[in-house]
């Protein structure tokens, strides 16, 4: 469902020939774009083509059939396929091909009829119970519960037992079976649609209920119902043919695929071709509607999984190869806990690789904290993930340069070595502690796991160490907490737990990605003070990614300012903040204390101009379009400024010396 464009036009115009239509809705121009969306998927195209194929067979059966489907011939029984009888003949000498073609009418007719019955009863029931609520809702839902207490086919069987075996009764039976599904879905989507503000609006404006339902609710739920119809068509067809197979559906001599399969059962040993064709037609038609349903779902159901772009793997391998060669070129090992050299990281997008980190070199010494600041989209989090060896697999990769952690060059390590590196040397603290903890495992499980991996500690030792870790991060009652689940802790506590986990194996490097931005101000200070404390005790190097300049000033030793995937200014925090040389740093600093404090903002203050679009950077200096210093000088457009020492720090601006003038 599209909720963004509510009242413009009905959503549903795409139908396949044999699909049941949604109830009447206000006329509107056809939405061909949705048909196109369906056809663009292989599923949708094959599904729709097959559905049309079946529709044609069913509609033109009398003309397609080569023989009279009822004509018996006792001199030609049970013949194998031949040029006269394409699919052979059955036990009464009837032409199987003609019977299958004619049977398409019955089989598909039952499917359509069944879905229609379910739709016509189920949808109004669902909409009504959502709309009126109260007793109607209660009764409907109880009835649905009761109906769902029977297996589908058993329920249909019971209905047929009462009414007698015939095609009409089968339609009614399989239709009735699907009523609960339609009623439930219609109820659920109606409820969510009714909760939309624009609908509440039109109700309060005095629109009649019928009008609201016809005009707003139905168009919105039509897509979902259409999807459901297609999927249910497949299962209805199978259930109905199942009844036919049991001899309780369409009665002989009328041809129906399920009934034909049932008749063929006695001849499976001697004449398997009888079962082959009827079964094939049945299975493929169910497949067709399932395919179409899937395609429809990906168009109409916002929660449907999206198809991932193909070929990601191949590209990634290529990228890794490049990185490998580059790193071989400058393989000098580094003694620092963290070092990157001319690091490039690219994401795979629909239009090919997109570099979001474009040549970053940095180095963090033991016991020091480097803060990376920048707007969102500047590539700072990607940089951190690259160092953490946690780039999303298959979607991003190091495309150039090198990362060295604890003296080991990351690109040269195999999977097992990377695991060792992560375990022993790297600790990671993510932005959102709530999603960084697994909701279904206890805290004890999760901390214990960090201790247990790759070690041979006894359960008792793991327990006592877990308790010690929790004590380290100032969590009271650690023994009791171990058995608790993440949702039982506050945000600040969760972040402490994450830190405890990160510290479990005494890492040399702690990587913290906006560790406090989800927390309120007082907790923020506590967490950072805790990190600094831990750093002093253990001598770790910390990489702190943040957009909060206040935190940088208080807790970091060095700072790197990132813009559009590059570091544009770097140096000791005090120096950089006292006398920024890059116009971007300058505007950050100038707008930070006053504006942010006044508005109570914790995020980076807005600076003039559009944030950079990493896919469409200008030539030369990426900051040029927003720069107040450039003033149209041609050098800025011609050459990318490199980081160079200016004053006490390094700056990537051609005219850095103009600062302070």
């Amino acid at each position, binding site marked *: 469902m599209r909720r963004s464009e509510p009242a413009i036009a009905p959503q549903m115009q795409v139908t396949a020939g044999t699909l049941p239509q949604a109830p009447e809705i206000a006329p509107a121009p056809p939405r061909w774009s949705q048909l196109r969306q369906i056809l663009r998927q292989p599923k949708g195209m094959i599904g729709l083509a097959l559905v049309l194929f079946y529709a044609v067979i069913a509609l033109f059966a009398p003309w397609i059939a080569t023989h009279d489907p009822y004509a018996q011939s006792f001199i030609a029984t049970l013949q194998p396929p031949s040029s006269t009888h394409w699919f052979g003949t059955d036990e009464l000498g009837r032409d199987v091909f003609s019977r299958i073609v004619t049977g398409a009418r019955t089989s598909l007719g039952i499917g359509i009829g069944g879905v229609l019955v379910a739709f016509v009863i189920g949808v109004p029931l669902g909409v009504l119970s959502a709309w009126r609520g109260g007793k109607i809702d209660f009764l409907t839902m109880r009835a649905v*519960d009761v109906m*769902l*207490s*029977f*297996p589908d086919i*058993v329920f249909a*069987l*019971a209905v047929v037992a*009462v009414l007698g075996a015939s095609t009409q009764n089968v339609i009614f039976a399989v239709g009735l079976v699907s009523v609960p599904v339609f009623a439930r879905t219609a109820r659920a989507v109606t409820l969510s649609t009714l909760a939309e503000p624009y609908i509440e609006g039109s109700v309060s404006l005095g629109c009649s209920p019928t009008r609201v339902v016809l005009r707003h609710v139905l168009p919105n739920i039509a897509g979902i119902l259409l999807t459901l119809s297609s999927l249910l068509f*497949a299962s209805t067809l*199978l259930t109905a043919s*199942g009844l036919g*197979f*049991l001899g*309780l559906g369409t009665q002989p001599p009328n041809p129906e695929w*399920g009934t034909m*399969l*049932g008749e*063929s059962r006695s001849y*499976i*040993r001697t004449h*398997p071709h009888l*079962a082959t064709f*009827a*079964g094939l037609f*049945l*299975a*493929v038609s*169910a*497949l067709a509607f*399932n395919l179409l349903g*899937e395609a429809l779902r990906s168009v109409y159901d916002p929660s449907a*999984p999206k198809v991932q*772009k193909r070929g*990601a793997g191949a590209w990634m391998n290529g990228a890794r190869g490049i990185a490998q060669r580059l790193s071989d070129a400058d393989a000098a090992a580094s003694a620092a806990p963290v070092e990157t050299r001319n690091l490039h990281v690219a994401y795979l997008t629909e239009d090919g690789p997109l570099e979001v980190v474009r040549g970053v070199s940095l180095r963090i010494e033991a016991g020091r904290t480097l803060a990376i600041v920048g707007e969102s989209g500047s590539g700072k989090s990607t940089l951190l993930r690259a160092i953490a060896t946690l780039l999303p697999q*298959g979607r991003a990769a190091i495309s150039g340069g090198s990362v060295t952690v604890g003296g080991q060059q990351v690109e040269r390590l195999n999977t097992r070595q990377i695991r*060792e590196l*992560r*375990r*022993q040397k*790297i600790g*990671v603290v*993510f*932005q959102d502690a709530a*999603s*960084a903890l*697994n*909701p*279904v*495992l*206890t805290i004890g499980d*999760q901390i214990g*796991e*960090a201790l247990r*991996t790759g070690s041979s500690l006894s359960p008792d030792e793991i327990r006592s160490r877990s308790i010690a870790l929790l004590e380290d991060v100032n969590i009271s009652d650690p023994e009791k907490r171990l058995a608790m689940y993440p*949702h*039982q802790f506050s945000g600040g506590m969760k972040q402490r737990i*994450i830190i405890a*986990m990160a510290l479990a*194996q005494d890492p040399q490097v702690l990587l913290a990605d906006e560790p406090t931005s989800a927390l309120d101000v007082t907790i923020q200070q506590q967490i950072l003070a805790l990190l600094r404390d831990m750093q002093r005790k253990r001598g770790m190097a910390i990489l702190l990614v943040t957009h909060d300049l206040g935190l940088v000033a208080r807790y970091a030793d060095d700072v790197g300012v990132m813009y559009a995937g590059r570091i544009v200014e770097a140096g000791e925090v005090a120096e950089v903040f006292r006398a920024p040389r890059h116009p971007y740093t300058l505007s950050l600093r100038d707008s930070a204390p006053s504006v942010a404090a006044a508005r109570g903002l914790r995020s980076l203050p807005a600076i003039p101009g559009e944030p950079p679009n990493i896919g469409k950077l200008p030539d030369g200096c990426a900051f040029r379009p927003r720069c107040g210093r450039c003033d149209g000088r041609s050098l800025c457009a011609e050459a990318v400024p490199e980081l160079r020492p200016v004053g006490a720090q390094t700056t990537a601006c051609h005219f850095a010396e103009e600062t302070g003038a």
Partner: protein
Amino acid sequence: MFVLNRLAAALPTLFIVSLLVFWFVDLIPGDPARILAGPMASQDEVEVIRDRMGLNEPGPQRYLHFVGGLFDPDIAVSLRTGRPVATEISERLPNTLIIAIGGLALGVILGTTTGIICALRQGTWVDTVITILTLGGISMPIYWLGLLCIWLFAVHLGWLPAAGAESWRHFVLPILAVATRPAATFSRLVTASLLEVMGRDYLDTARSKGLTEAQVILRHALRNSLVAAVSVAGVQFGAMLGGSVITETVFGIPGIGRLLVDAVSRADYPVIQYSILMFAFFFVVINLVTDLITLWLDPRMRQNVRAR
């Protein structure tokens, strides 16, 4: 406490279901007394039998009679064989359960494995093949698949028997056939739920502890799809019990599905009533068990229940 509440909620459903089954089967055309008496019996003899079966009593009494049949095997007797329905059912139930449980187990194992492979190998040919197979599995009429299996393994290759329930070998083909659908369903479920959690931070947290990718998937990612998997397993198990109606016909297995089909085609109404009731009973129990397992698995829900 919650368990008791949940049990209490299931009882009214069972009551309504039993009422429905009673009333429903009452509508079946044909006179049960005449069927029991046989075509040669005189009208008077039929009346005597009718009286004995309590068919002349008013509705509520007959319902009580029907419910009584649940506890007293002598009340409910098959019109065709004259044996107690309870005996008929309990003789056949093991066969049905073996196939359903075996099929579910096989389906879950196959489905979970292929689902994981699919999620990890998105966009590769393996993914494509598995996706096509699962769609095929969902679209496959089990009776056709059964016939194909019989033709291939029993007739053509002669490896396994085609029909009957005498030895374990008789159960191989039916279990294979019924496992298709749960396997396909599980495969899709596991793929979808893995893809959903794939980008979550807690997987990276787990990786940063130095876990292997397999540990990350099995311990952390899959754990979250467990809840959905359990409820799907419940639905599939119920569907397979219902599907026994067809499977047992295809493979000629004496189970309750076959019993019901035969009863319907012969208007053996006590057997229809009680076997349908038993299906419904199983369904309600499965739903109950599923709910309880879900509760046990998901700590967040457990707390909600306690808070209530």
